[in-house]
């Protein structure tokens, strides 16, 4: 059974590219365009891994991450933070609140795919 990935980003074009990329690699993909929608989709879609943008309207990626980590039933959920802000503090903050990986935009599609597969243990 294919792993499920939820893509969360407010930039439609980035969502398009990520969705296409992940589907091509054979993952089952769902999309959310803001933080609140993301939390709803996690509950409904029950993904194995989250590609989570930081800068989003309504609820930022950090807030979504924190909320998910506070839920013990979701402890197995993998979270990959995506951010266009390259500052070290952002990376540190993301990892500190429980993200499993941190990827800076713009990213290499190849490397992202490798990283996701690695984390899901499908390599």
């Amino acid at each position: 059974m294919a792993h499920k990935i939820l893509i969360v980003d407010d930039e439609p074009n980035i969502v398009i590219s990520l969705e296409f990329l992940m589907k091509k690699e054979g993952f089952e993909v769902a999309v959310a365009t803001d933080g609140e929608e993301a939390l709803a989709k996690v509950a409904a879609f029950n993904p194995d891994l989250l590609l989570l943008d930081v800068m989003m309207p309504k609820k930022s990626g950090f807030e979504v991450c924190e909320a998910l980590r506070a839920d013990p039933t979701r402890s197995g959920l993998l979270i990959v933070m995506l951010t266009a802000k390259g500052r070290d503090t952002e990376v540190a903050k993301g990892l500190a609140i429980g993200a499993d990986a941190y990827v800076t935009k713009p990213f290499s599609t190849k490397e992202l795919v490798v990283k996701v597969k690695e984390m899901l243990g499908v390599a």
Partner: protein
Amino acid sequence: MLSGWFVALLSAAYLALLFAVARFGDARADNGRSIISANVYALSLAVYCTSWTFFGSVGRATSGGLSFLTIYIGPTLMLLCVGTIVKMIRISKTYRITSIADFIASRYGKSQMLAGLVTVIAVIGVVPYIALQLKAVAASLDVLFEQSGHAEIFWGLDSTFLIAVILALFTILFGTRHLDATERHEGMVAAIAFESVVKLVAFMAVGLFVTYGMFGGLGDLFQRATASPELGRLLQMDETRAGTWTTLILLSGLAIILLPRQFQIIVVENVDESHLKRAVWLFPLYLLLINIFVLPLAIGGLVFFDGQGVNPDTFVLTLPLARGAEALALLAFIGGLSAATGMVIVETIALSTMVCNDLAMPLLLRSRWLQLAKRQDLSGLLIGIRRAAIALILLLGYIYFRAAGEAYALVGIGLISFSAVAQFAPVLFGGMYWKQGTRAGAAAGLMAGFIVWLYTLLLPSFAKSGWIGNGFVEQGLFGVEWLKAQALFGLSGMDEISHCLWWSMFANIGSYIVVSLNSTPDAVEASQAERFVDIMRHGRRDADARLWRGKTSLGAVVELLERFLGVARARQQLQAYAETRGHADWRELPADAEFVHFAEVELAGAIGSASARVMVASVVQEEDLGLEEVLDILDEATQVRAYSRELEFKQRELEAATAELREANERLRELDRMKDDFISTVTHELRTPLTSIRALSEMLHEDPRTELTDRKRFLGIIVNEAERLTRLINQILDMAKLESGRAEWTTGEVDIGEVARESMDSLGQLFREKGVALDGDIPAHGPLVLADRDRLTQVMINLLSNAVKFVSGDGGRVSVKVAAEAGRVRVVVADNGPGLTAEECAVIFEKFRQGGNTMTDKPQGTGLGLPISRQIVEYFGGNLWAESRPGEGASFIFTVPLPAPEA
């Protein structure tokens, strides 16, 4: 019958009695049981009443009526100023002042020059006064012997010379009996008090005898006077003498303190300040009593000796003798002798102290210092100098008497002396109350006053005596009219005393003040000024000690004291001082500043403050304290206050500076954070389109088998994102230019209505595509403003494209209105979109804040349009803001000022 021998014996007996009183007084003083009570002190002040009073008052009354009273009313009023006298006494005691010269010199920086100057003025002014006493005694002897048939000079010698010699010896015995030279003479004070009683009793006795024995009482005498037109004049208070009257009160009021003998008695010889409370009324009472019978005696004499040409100055003797009351005449003679003796003794002691300390010592210290250094005990030398000075002063008095004879210069000398010593008043009182008075000022004032006195009073008196030509009095010096000695600068119509007092005080006070204000005191002057003026404030011992810094040895200072005070007295004083400092033996005393100060004060009591300072300086290594430093120390209280004020001020300043710094720092950090945020935001904004572009192009690049539709879609996105990226970069650069002020502007007259219309036209297509209505309310022409046309168009387009972005395609409506109002053009772009909250109205002008939360047309906005527009409008002097309420659409309004109408 009065034999010469009898008179001589009686005189000798009387002088011996005085001497016995003095010995008794000294003995009591040595035992520490002073006989100087308040009463004795008050009576000793009556040394003021000399033979000039005893004989001369009656003489004055025969010509001037009641005006002789001024000489006694002045002192009465002056003594009531107890505060001033107490202050003088306090200063003199604290610093062991020995004379008025010492007082003035000490105040102005212990100046030997000033001490010498005051001494010279005092000697010149007072020696004739001493001569007057000799003359009085001689004249009274003449009267006695003439009346008793001994017309020839009995002694075979000049009797006056003998009197002078006797007085000199007597004074030496009185004033310099002690081997130790100190400033006080308690025995002498007691003797003076005694002789004061004698002269009062003698004068009153004569007065009573004449008034009630020879005439029928006061009423009878005055009625006789009223009957005669000539005598009646004496009882009138003549308005024309008003000026003289006041002058004499002032002059005598000053003399009661400033005459060397008065300063000696009132200030130097005072043993207890509280004695002054008795003197303040008892001494005036004495003056009143001795004056009651002056006018009756004058009238009695004039009536009795009508036309006989008897000298009115001898009425006190001649009236009793005329009635054969020889015993009373002898009492009167003793009274007159007493008055003269008392004056001569005290005056000569005071002057000799001044001459010794302020003229001789400085010269000796300077010229023969090395020799002096070798002498072990100088107290003997001091006494010797004083004795010589006494002899010299009396000799001078005698010479003056011989030279003057009956001349005017002697008769008028009382008031001339008063005027001379009055010259001390400005520097003395000024010095006690005015810290700014300087040594230079004091010297200038004294010199100026003295010269005017010399020229307008003393020299004319010489001229009247025929000793010198009177051209300078009659025609003026060198024939210059306004230099006439007694009508200086044409000031006439005054009596000579008033004239002199007026001009000399003018010159004196003027010079003193002007020179003082224009000279800088040295450190010693400044500290002395402070000490004198502030003497009544708390003990200044601390300050005194701190005002001296240096090194010395106990031995050197002790040796100095022993040499000038004598070994016994020096040790006695040292022991007493050691005990006050809690040492059992004076050898344990530390050679510190306080000790040196004590030694200098002790020494000042012997040789005057100026010489004492020189002597002390010779045995210690003094560190010079600068004027600033001295003032600092003296003004410590003020200083501390000033410091704390300054500190407080500094602290406030520091706090303010700190707050400012903190604020600046805060602002900087805020700016830093903003810049950081800006860069971070810019990075984010740039990376976002880049992310899509990179991801899509990588996928296209790696998988050539991508379906054509996807490939087209992706390429479309890539092109759009690349465009967005370009736009973004352009706007960021634009923004940066605007913010740094490096943007280029081409400013000219712009028809703002035209700009609005053109902008609407160029965006017409966009509006039509979305189905949004666009209408305008714009004047056909103008208004014209000064602006950059392209920039203004940029603003207009930005506002219109924002509006079209946020209204819905269905029923959306945007309207533009351009209107001129008071001094400016107002442009409104209103839409009927979702509207903004008040908070959003403000926030949307921040960089990278984008309106709305929707994803609608997101790639189109960069978040820089509004901030750029605002910058542009503000550059032209206008404003740009938004007015809106949620659900009611939004209006973006900007104004641009109209150019000022040309005149």
